[in-house]
């Protein structure tokens, strides 16, 4: 398309469909949590609408892009959009990392009597303010809501699956970069090979993560295991969700590569997904260090 013209897209139904979808999903979810038997189905229905919207919306954008309607200005707008979207995700994770640091450095030591709050150890018999073991020595403890605290019997082993997963995810970052180089050199078969490798590594990561959850859960480490269980599952859970989304996006990119959507110098879709994947990678490094290791 002409570089001398501004591009303004046509009107669209997809946003309102998306709003209906996400509102339905949330209303269903809330009702499900409050014990309404129909909540779950409404939630799934809302999710289906959302998926439909994404197919439709992204499909339309892909079609417009491949038919050559976009100029380099549109491309730059997409780049700005994607980068700042990723930054907003960083800040979302920052909230949970903040909670983790606060608990480790402040609230748990305070509960253990640091800074002269000597009364707290008497809250429960044998309370120990050791990170990870915060709930270990408190059998029979309940949360304020009345939920029983689940007491894990074993610590998570850093150098088992988590370390393996770190290696897998870092490797996937490398293979994805190779795919990008191949794309820039226009080697279609190599792109596909490296992309498939990246996806396989991502799926392996998710598989091991599920296995790891299985172990932890079996040992009694649950969301209800106090602040350690809370931060552990929420951080790794949101990360796992992002990896899942990343794998789906990579698969779509693989499909689009096969369709010949990208050229050596015009492949924002690929790059946007690559940025996202590297972001997920970096978050994992933070998780590995602060949740599993230290």
């Amino acid at each position, binding site marked *: 398309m002409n570089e001398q013209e*501004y591009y303004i897209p*046509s009107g669209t139904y997809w*946003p309102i469909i998306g*709003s209906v979808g*996400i509102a339905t999903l949330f209303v269903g979810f809330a009702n499900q949590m409050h014990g309404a038997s129909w909540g779950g189905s409404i939630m799934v229905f809302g999710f289906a609408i959302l998926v439909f919207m994404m197919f439709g919306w992204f499909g339309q954008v892909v079609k417009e892009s491949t038919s050559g309607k976009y100029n380099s200005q549109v491309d*730059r707008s997409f780049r700005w959009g994607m980068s700042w979207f990723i930054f907003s995700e960083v800040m979302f994770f920052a909230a949970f990392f903040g*909670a983790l640091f606060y608990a480790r450095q402040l609230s748990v030591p305070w509960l253990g009597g640091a800074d002269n709050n000597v009364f707290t150890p008497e809250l429960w018999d044998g309370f120990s303010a050791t990170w990870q073991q915060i709930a270990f020595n408190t059998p029979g403890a309940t949360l304020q809501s009345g939920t029983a605290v689940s007491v894990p019997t074993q610590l998570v082993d850093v150098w088992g699956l988590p370390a393996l997963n770190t290696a897998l995810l870092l490797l996937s970052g490398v293979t994805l970069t190779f795919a990008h180089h191949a794309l820039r050199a226009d080697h279609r078969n190599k792109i596909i090979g490296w992309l498939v490798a990246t996806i396989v590594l991502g799926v392996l990561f998710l598989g091991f993560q599920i296995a790891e959850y299985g172990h932890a859960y079996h040992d009694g480490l649950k969301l209800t295991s106090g602040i350690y269980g809370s931060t552990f599952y929420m951080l790794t859970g949101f990360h796992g969700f992002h990896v899942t989304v990343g794998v789906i996006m990579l698969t779509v990119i693989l499909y689009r590569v096969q369709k010949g959507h990208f050229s050596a110098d015009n492949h924002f879709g690929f790059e946007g997904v690559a940025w996202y994947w590297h972001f997920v990678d970096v978050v994992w490094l933070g998780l590995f260090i602060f949740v599993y290791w230290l």
Partner: protein
Amino acid sequence: MTTVTDHTDDGHHGPEKGLMRWIKTTNHKDIGSLYLWFAFVMLLIGGAMAMVIRMELFQPGMQLSEPQFFNQMTTMHGLIMVFGAVMPAFVGLGNWLIPMMIGAPDMALPRMNNWSFWILPFAGGILLSTFFMEGGAPAFGWTFYAPLSTTFAPDSTDFFIFAVHLLGFSSIMGAINIIATVLNMRAPEMKLMDMPLFVWTWLITSFLLIGAMPVLAGAVTMMLTDRNFGTAFFDATGGGDPVLFQHIFWFFGHPEVYIMILPAFGVVSHIIPTFARKPLFGYSSMVYASASIAFLSYIVWGHHMFSTGMPVAGELYFMYATMLIAVPTGVKVFNWVSTMWRGSMTFETPMLWAISFVFLFTIGGFSGLMLGIVPADIQYQDTYFVVAHFHYVLVTGALWAIIAATFYWLPKWTGKMYNETLAKVHFWWAVISVNVLFFPQHFLGLAGMPRRIPDYSLQFADFNMISSIGGFAFGASFILFTYILIDCIRNGKPADARPWEGAKGLEWTLEPKAQYHSFNIPPTKVLIEQESQNS
């Protein structure tokens, strides 16, 4: 460059007809109008709740509501005004004005722009629906501190949480769009330091939104899991801490208050030079002041928690950091006053609102300074003094700028002129009543009247009655405001393309009622420099 709209619709020639125009639109002016009308409706709904609050507080004793209902009113009033009225109003202004001011045809990501708006009615609907649920609407204050909002809150809280998620998505998408627009759609010849201040302040606000809103999303997500899935983020019996909630909330909350005031600074920086017929004093210092205010706003959140309890070093740090914000804020006030100094001033309605903004916002800034002093705040915390402070900065600050902007750019939006006499009557009515409403609340607070309580002891009676009378009068002023707006849209006299003699800015070079796509061909360097505020 010329504009090409995707030819799958007839957007090339103008808007579609009927309701579908508004649902499908990708036009920044349509979306701006939707935002502004949405904000206006929310303002009236939130205002109605304020009337209930002032009626209850008219006299000591319980007048017309249960305490629980009163708490629902204060909570929902705050939430609706912040998230439903002030923020959407500024996004609406940004949508309308930014493309015109930077010489662009539209926003950078027009379809996402549509979604940012069309999430809002759903979020607002979910939020308001909580009134009709068992246990009533949220009643824990707009700051929704744990454990009030976790362990002790009604079921409707989960709906409130999802409404906040939706509002957050909307704000984040809106902010991303504005960043992309300013950085990528600007006329090629326009340097950053040629950008009008409203554009600068909105750009900076966008960074605040992208940094702060996801943290709020994190906070409500933790609430959600604490409430429903047995996590212990804010529960000391599981090793968490309710104080953690306050830290996360205010890490969002303080940038949030600047999200609501920075675009207001931008608006005022347009209006004052116009009616003083002088260039803005200290353009670049305005830009740097805005940026440093934004940066500082991320590192002062603890001033909301002085009496919560914090290590002394923390209290001192947050106190001094808070004082520091007064410096760039002072720079701004100084520049506005210097712009007026020896100007040939006239006092059309937008100017009246802008000048009173400078006075009244500064009062709010001073009371903020008082609140920022730790030993003093221990006394003021949770009294009506705080209520007076934030209403001076938000009502006579943020809302004032929104109203000023409405009068200032209304001719460009509608191609018509409002009724100047009525508008002046409205201004004096509002500015007097708002002071009758909020000024006595300083005294109430200093005398120790707590906020968020429906009843009070006898010594507070007089000032409360005065405040309520001011409140009713201020509320009524919006009837006149509505009339003036509708009268302008329906019967206004045709306006000139540049209705204000001293006005500078690319928007005034467009047709009297700005054309559907603002700049199909980017403005020239000469034109940009001629219309630049930085001269």
